[in-house]
């Protein structure tokens, strides 16, 4: 799979991912944001597959679109913010500032990418080179798994702890308890006494 079709598919995926992510950050209602985010994740999964990361593309869909976004949607349902209770978004100035920063980050990164000798060396071919025959299993689940367990065993194990921490944390925090009768930590309002 090479040639113009690849370029076209990539172009479409890229453009729609950018568009949907832009919509994610601009929609007032989080529901729409979440939906566009799912779209965006799908596009990214497509890009992964284009890059011969087939397994990862599926994982992307499963984990992000399947798990994380469901979580988001659940939370949105749980909170169920009505339109009028949505936080009032910032005005023009704030947005301009944020956009400025984002734009500047983008331009600096672009500047860096375009000026990087390494990138230009790597991109000399003008496109992503095809994989040779020997590496046709690249991105396939078997090779991926082998490498994961042989070369990145430690990381994999630590990741399990990471997930465990995430679970414990989420459970502890989200578990409903009776609100404490006394409000703790009121010290910051009590800066009455000046010392020294």
């Amino acid at each position, binding site marked *: 799979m090479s040639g113009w079709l690849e370029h076209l598919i990539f172009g479409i995926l890229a453009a729609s991912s950018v568009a949907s992510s832009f919509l994610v950050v601009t929609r007032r209602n989080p529901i729409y944001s979440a939906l566009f985010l799912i779209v965006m994740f799908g596009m990214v999964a497509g890009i992964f597959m284009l890059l011969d990361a087939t397994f990862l593309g599926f994982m992307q869909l499963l984990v992000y679109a399947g798990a994380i976004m469901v979580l988001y949607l659940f939370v949105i349902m749980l*909170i169920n913010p009505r339109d009028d209770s949505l936080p009032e978004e910032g005005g023009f100035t704030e947005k301009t500032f944020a956009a400025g*920063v984002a734009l500047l980050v983008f331009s600096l990164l672009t500047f860096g990418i375009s000026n990087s000798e390494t990138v230009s060396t790597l991109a000399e071919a003008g496109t992503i080179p095809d994989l040779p025959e020997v590496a046709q299993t690249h991105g396939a689940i078997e090779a991926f798994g082998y490498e994961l367990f042989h070369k990145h065993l430690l990381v994999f194990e630590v990741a399990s702890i990471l997930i465990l921490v995430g679970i414990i944390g989420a459970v502890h925090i989200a578990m409903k308890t009776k609100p404490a009768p006394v409000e703790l930590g009121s010290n910051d309002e009590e800066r009455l006494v000046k010392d020294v």
Partner: protein
Amino acid sequence: MFSLPVILYLSALLFSIGIYGVLARRNILVVLMSLELMLNAVNIALVGFGRVHALSTPSGEHSGQIFTLMVLAVAAAEAAIGLSLLLLIWRRWKTIDLRELCRLSG
């Protein structure tokens, strides 16, 4: 068009959009989503790089992908914690406005 620089530009663009979302929005939910956006942007770069280096990489041909997988795991855990914190905030503060969390200052 389908080349490493373009992939990197795309990644940078998505990253910047994520930054914009984090900086510009007050709705905590959207901020969290923007953070996911940022991570995804990085993923694209990682996979792209991994693909380019698939044959030469000393750390294994899938190193980029494995890194991405770890990012996925982190993103999942982070989302879990983030959303539970959001719930907590909602319970305690009855708001999802980022700006109202400003009792602690100075």
